[in-house]
């Protein structure tokens, strides 16, 4: 069984995103970039499934600038077998990303796609579901457990108020939630080995997908700052303040 794992290069989750003063976007110059945390969980899951013998090949794919090769090397160091970069400097919307992934899937014919439920930059939580829709594949989003079998997958999903288990026929799209696993740190020997694994680069423009923007960004602003608070001396002061604020 072959699994495709799309991964995204985003601002590191421990770095505070800062809005540019001209309101044109978030400043990414000289900011630490890393693999999106949910994508890491997806890579980890695919590699664990391979270690268990349920999967034979793990292919990582990223859509982004040339530097996304670093993100792919991280995936390879975690245990992916090979990688594909669909190179573009354009900021693409989830629907366009889904269409590009569909083109990759047409060439690679994976049995399943395991991907993060959301990227922590755009926070859309949409690409996996959109990809499932345009492929007419079933989807199992927000996975906290995955069992792969011949022709099907049993997926436990995080839903409002609990867990839901679905069985989807393969090929299918599965998106990873936080509880699925804890991603490993790549060991130094594996990082060295990853440098020799195959990484193909293709131009996004070469896949026959219209890269048009449906949404025009008018401005990006900072949210209103919280008004300064006060320090209270005792727990009793705290309770009386909360009563005055009307939240108790």
């Amino acid at each position, binding site marked *: 069984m072959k699994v495709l794992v799309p991964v995204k290069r985003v601002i590191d989750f421990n770095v505070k995103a800062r809005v540019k003063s001209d309101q044109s976007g978030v400043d990414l110059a000289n900011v630490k970039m890393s693999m999106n945390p949910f994508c890491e969980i997806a890579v980890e899951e695919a590699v664990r499934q391979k270690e268990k013998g349920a999967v034979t090949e793990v292919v990582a794919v990223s859509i982004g600038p040339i530097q996304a090769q670093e993100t792919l090397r991280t995936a390879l160091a975690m245990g992916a077998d090979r990688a594909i970069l669909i190179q573009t400097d354009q900021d693409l919307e989830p629907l366009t990303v889904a269409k590009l992934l569909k083109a990759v899937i047409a060439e690679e014919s994976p049995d399943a796609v395991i991907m993060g439920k959301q990227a*922590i930059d755009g926070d*859309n939580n949409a690409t996996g579901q959109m990809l499932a*829709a345009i492929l007419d594949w079933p989807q199992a989003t927000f996975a906290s457990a995955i069992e792969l079998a011949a022709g099907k997958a049993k997926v436990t999903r995080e*839903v*409002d108020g609990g867990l839901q288990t*679905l069985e989807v026929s393969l090929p299918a799209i599965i998106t990873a939630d936080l509880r699925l696993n804890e991603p490993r740190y790549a060991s130094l020997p594996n990082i060295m080995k990853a440098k020799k694994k195959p990484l193909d680069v293709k131009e996004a423009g070469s896949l026959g997908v219209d890269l048009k923007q449906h949404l025009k960004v008018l401005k990006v602003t900072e949210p209103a700052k919280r008004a300064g608070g006060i320090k209270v001396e005792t727990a009793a002061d705290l309770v009386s303040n909360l009563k005055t604020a009307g939240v108790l």
Partner: protein
Amino acid sequence: MAVLVIADHDNASLKDNTHKTVTAALALSKDVDVLVAGAGAKGVADAAAKIAGVRKVLLAESDELGHGLAEAVEAVVVPLMANYDAVLTPATSQGKNFSPRVAAKLDVAQISEIVEVVDASTFVHPIYAGNALETVQSSDAKKVITVRPTAFKAAAEGGSASVETISSGSGAAKTKFVDQQLVKSERPELAGAKIVVSGGRAMGSAEEFQRVIEPLADKLGAAVGASRAAVDAGYAPNDYQVGQTGKVVAPELYVAIGISGAIQHLAGMKDSKVIVAINKDGDAPIFQVADFGLVADYKSAVPELMDALTAAGK
């Protein structure tokens, strides 16, 4: 233009998220219909008909819709969109599951988790876990939108719309529902709770976390949350995590105990109405966002807070 709102419910009762989404929809159009897709959900549809401002309620029922299967919801909503210019869904895990599918089938963008309607094609939504607000203008003829419920007031009761039963669509041939385990907790759900009490790494152990955080949460009728540091250390389960990679919450009252306030945690709770921080380090970043800060060791402060709440009749 006419707008469709997809109701949030559990087949038995209509959730308040629906009322909030109706408010967002009424900012787009006066012609707002509500779709209830479920199983045995006639009561939900009747409740939706009572929301002020709703023109008509559509009810589609099947087992697959009852389980909220994304493919089944898509099969009902996509054909309906011939009659609507926009569809708005509360950004719950259920809404986030099917809404992007609807958008992709219509070949339009999804405008995710809007917090403000500027005009019929311009919306504000948070990105980077709320560290930035992006204003976008859609060029799509049909708009597919998810709505962050905490950003809108609930529409009032007092409507008397008609309920019309419609076809339940073609189902979900490739997906089978197996089972579900809903948590039977007396505590409210973290994402929608009015009060959240969260503990951090200062707790030092899972036993201490339970001993300190849970009784306080129960006294306040609150949900329990945790910082990523506490979760990573194994003091609290992963689904308690509040933050950029966990849950984003915006309760009326957020109580952070022994939490220093890492960026990734602040991103998940800074839209709370009132924030309380209890931490023995007076320089902890959590105090920069707290409305009320108590510089004290939680070991003495939490018992004192419990006593003060009891004295206040809680």
